[in-house]
Each structure stands twice: as C-alpha cells, then as structure tokens.
C-alpha cells in the first residue's frame, strides 16, 4: 500500500493543473477557433493575444497599477507591523488581548460590507482612483495578518537575545534593526509574501476604489470581457499573465509557505 502513496498527491496536482492548462490552451487560440472547434491543444497556434496585451496601454497599465498598489501595501503593512508584533510578543500592556482580538476581527470583516463606505471615505479625502487608496484599503486585512504572522515568528526567538543585547549596552533601536530584524528575516519574508498574496488576489475593493487612472488588471479583464462581447482568447491570455507574479514569489518562499499559513506557530 505504501508504494502507491505517491498517487494521491500526483492525482491532486493533476486536478489543480487541469483548469490552468485549459486557460493556457485558450490563450494561444484565436477566438474563432475557441468558439468553432473543440480541441485539447491549439491547432492554429497564435501569440496574437499576448502581443495585444503587451502593446495596448489599456491592458499593460493595468498590470502596473496592480503591482504598484500591491508593492505599497506590502511595504507599509510589514513596516508598521514589525514594532507592533514585537510589542505583542514581548510585553504585557493595558488592553493587549482585546487589541489583538480587535485586529483579528478586521481580518474577518467581509469586504462587501466595507465597499460602499470605503468609496465615500476615499472620495472625501481625495484619494479616489489612486493606487494609494487601494494600498491603504488593503491594510484593513493585511496589517492584522502581518502582525499575527510576525508575532508567531518573534515568539520563537528566545528572550535571552534581547537581554544580552541590553547588557552589552545596545540602544533599543540599534538592537532592533541591527540584531533582531536579521534573526527573523524568514518571518518577514513570509509576512511580505502573504501581504503580496492577499493584495494581489483581492478585487472587490480594488475595483470599487478605482475608475480609470488606477484601474487594476483584474478589473480591466472583467470590463473588457463584458463590453466587447466574447474576446475569450484575450481574456485567457490576460488571466494567464496574472498567474506569473504569484508563481514567481512562491518559488522564493517555498520552504516557508507552510509555516506562514500556520501563522508562524507550528
């Protein structure tokens, strides 16, 4: 029985790759071929769809917009979460447990609840249709997550490290930046990965808070698909390209992904 154990993960991975293959398959077909004939691979192989995306500004600016707000959000979330996570993992202070649960509740808030108020709030402060608005809005669920993950990793660092540095006469900030942060680089990488991931995949808020100038790629896809009828090949090509950044980042954190999902607490 043990000899056939590899079958289960293999079948599962095959199941995961099947729809992705189908998307790629379509992205290399012309729209006529997609609607006209049914085939397991492209008969008239074409790169036309990809060429269109890379040459038409309405398409490729979508990728820039998405990557811009994802990058701002990741840097912002991780940098404010670092000191907060340190405080939660090292100190007891007034209301610490309640504060932690309150942060957690924001991870539970359905984005649909916040869509309309966010639209009004960011219009009122004049940030509507900028990448910054989306980056700030995504902080709602990414900061709590980053604090949660980093706190898990920091709690695994022995307290003696802090005490030794204190005895050696390190001022706190120098200790924090020079010694403490380098010891938890894995944790920072994982937290950054998760912020990237949840900001990259979220669409409801990103779509609500932008109209033209900062439109994310995912929104470009939905609008083009509905306005110009069925340009399935183009849609498939745009979809395939959104998988690339994710696949790229997974590769870097592959050994820590599991630990990150467990919020640093395995």
């Amino acid at each position: 029985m043990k000899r056939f154990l590899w079958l289960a993960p293999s079948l599962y991975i095959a199941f995961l790759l099947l729809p992705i293959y189908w998307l790629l398959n379509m992205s290399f077909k012309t729209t006529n071929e997609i609607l006209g004939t049914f085939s397991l691979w492209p008969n008239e192989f074409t790169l036309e769809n990809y060429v269109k995306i890379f040459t038409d500004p309405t398409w490729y600016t979508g990728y820039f917009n998405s990557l811009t707000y994802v990058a701002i959000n990741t840097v912002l979330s991780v940098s404010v979460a670092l000191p907060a996570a340190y405080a939660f993992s090292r100190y007891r202070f007034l209301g610490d447990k309640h504060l932690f649960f309150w942060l957690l509740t924001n991870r539970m808030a359905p984005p649909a609840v916040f869509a309309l108020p966010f639209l009004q709030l960011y219009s009122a402060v004049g940030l509507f249709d900028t990448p910054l608005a989306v980056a700030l809005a995504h902080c709602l669920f990414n900061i709590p997550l980053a604090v949660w993950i980093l706190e898990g990793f920091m709690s695994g660092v022995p307290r003696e490290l802090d005490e030794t540095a204190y005895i050696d006469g390190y001022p706190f900030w120098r200790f924090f930046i020079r010694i403490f942060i380098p010891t938890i680089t894995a944790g920072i990488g994982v937290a950054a990965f998760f912020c990237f991931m949840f900001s990259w995949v979220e669409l409801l808020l990103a779509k609500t808070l932008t109209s033209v100038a900062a439109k994310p790629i995912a929104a470009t896809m939905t609008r083009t698909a509905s306005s110009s009828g069925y340009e399935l090949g183009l849609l498939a090509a745009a979809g395939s390209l959104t998988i690339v950044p994710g696949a790229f980042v997974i590769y870097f954190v592959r050994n820590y992904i599991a630990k990150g999902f467990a919020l640093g607490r395995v």
Partner: protein
Amino acid sequence: MIAKTTNQKAWFFVLPVVLLVAFNAIIPLMTVVNYSVQETFGDNVFFWEGVGWFEQVLHSERFHDALLRQLAFSFIILAIEVPLGIAIALAMPRKGPWVSVCLVLMALPLLIPWNVVGAMWNIFALPDIGLLGKAINGLGIDYNFTRQPIAAWFTTVLMDVWHWTSLVVLLCYAGLCSIPDAYYQAAKIDGARGWAIFRYIQLPKLKRVLTIAILLRFMDSFMIYTEPFVLTGGGPGNATTFLSIDLVKIALGQFDLGPAAAMSLIYFLIVLLLCWIFYTLMMRGEEQ
C-alpha cells in the same frame, strides 16, 4: 512560552498599526451604523428610522434564504476540504526533491486573482467550450451550470475545493513535519499501526494547525464574493446568491443604503459571533 514583562510604553509600538487600521475600520463602520438607522429620499436628506431596517432585514425571506445558502456552502466545503487536505498531507513525501515541487504546484491556485479563478472555471466548465463540461456531458450526464441549480452548486463547490484545499494541505503538512521522530519510534515499540498512529500521535499534533485552517476557511468561505459572482453571477435564478453577492446587489446595485447597512451589520455580527466561538474553543483546548 516566554514570560512577558509589563510595559505600558509598548503602546507606542502598536500605535501606527492602531491608527492605520482604525482609519480603515472605525470610520467606515460608523458610516454603516449611521445609514442603518436612517431613511433617505435622496438629496442628502436623512430621517431617523430607528431599528426599522434591522427588523425588516431580519424578517425578510430573501435574507433568510441567502443566509441558509451561505451556511450550507461553508459547511459543504469544510466537510470536503478538511478530510481531503489531511489525507493528501499524510500521503506527501517528507523529504527529497519532490517536496519543493509539490509545495510550489499546490500553492499555485492560492496566488491567482479571485476573478481569474472564476473566469478560468467558467471557461473550464462551460458545456460547449470547456473541458469539464464536455467531459461530463460525454459521460451521458446532462450538465449545464448556467441553467441547472444543482450543476451550478456542484461547479461552485468544486471550484472552491480546487482553490483552497491546498491551504489545508500546507497547514497539515507543516504540522506533520513538526512531529519528532522519537514519537513514531515509541509508537513502533508499543506496536501501534496505521490508524492508531494517526489517531493518537498525528491527529493531536495537528489540532492547532487544523483549528487555524478551519477558522481561515470558514471566514473566507463565509465572505466569498468574487469567484461565484464571475462564475455564475449568483444564478441560475438565485441558486448561488451568497450573502456577499446579495449585499453588493442591494448596496451598489439598488443603492438601498438603509437595508444594505442594516444587513451589513447583521452579517458582520454573525461572522464575529461564529469566529469568537471557534476562537474560544481553540484557546480552551490549548489551556488544558
């Protein structure tokens, strides 16, 4: 666990986080509360309405139906994803070059934007151009998820299993890897096999990660919006209109601010309550 020292200055460390999250959480939440107790006839003129909207939402059949569908959906996907995730994690290799390959490929669905997931499954399952649709119809089963409610449910659930089972697998795999070899050796000496090893060694060790997995899966499935919206648009009819889809329809589609706000608050409170129950159970389990 490390002993913590009391230090009120730690508040300065958490202050930036509190300010940023509060800006995003408290102001919008107050806006929602504000709308939920008022009535408007346009032109920014508002009248006090009291708890009227709440009563209306709580008594409306539409809300009951959406809530029931939502609970059923979350329950079904948890019942499939958790056992499947555990089984695959158990069958995965513990070392060797295949570990990285498995982890990277399994994490792939998690990094795809949610509307692309919906669009991908749409073209994968359509009966005329999709592989899945063609295959099922080829087996002699009449299948069209845009017309049959059962087929729509089947496709939505399958999509969610495809999308999120890897999360459970990755968590359980991390939990299994953290069990020291000595535990297995001791079990071998005692003559424990297969099921006994799983029940008395692996499962207790998985408890913590499984709670996180169930919590995360429950929260996210309860808030699901984009994937079913792109896949089925909530249809056919209202068959796959879950709470978030219904809420966005009322708030941004019909612009019924009062009922939408009241529904938002009730929705949020239900999620909070259920998560609080999970969280307390988890913490109690840990203390024992």
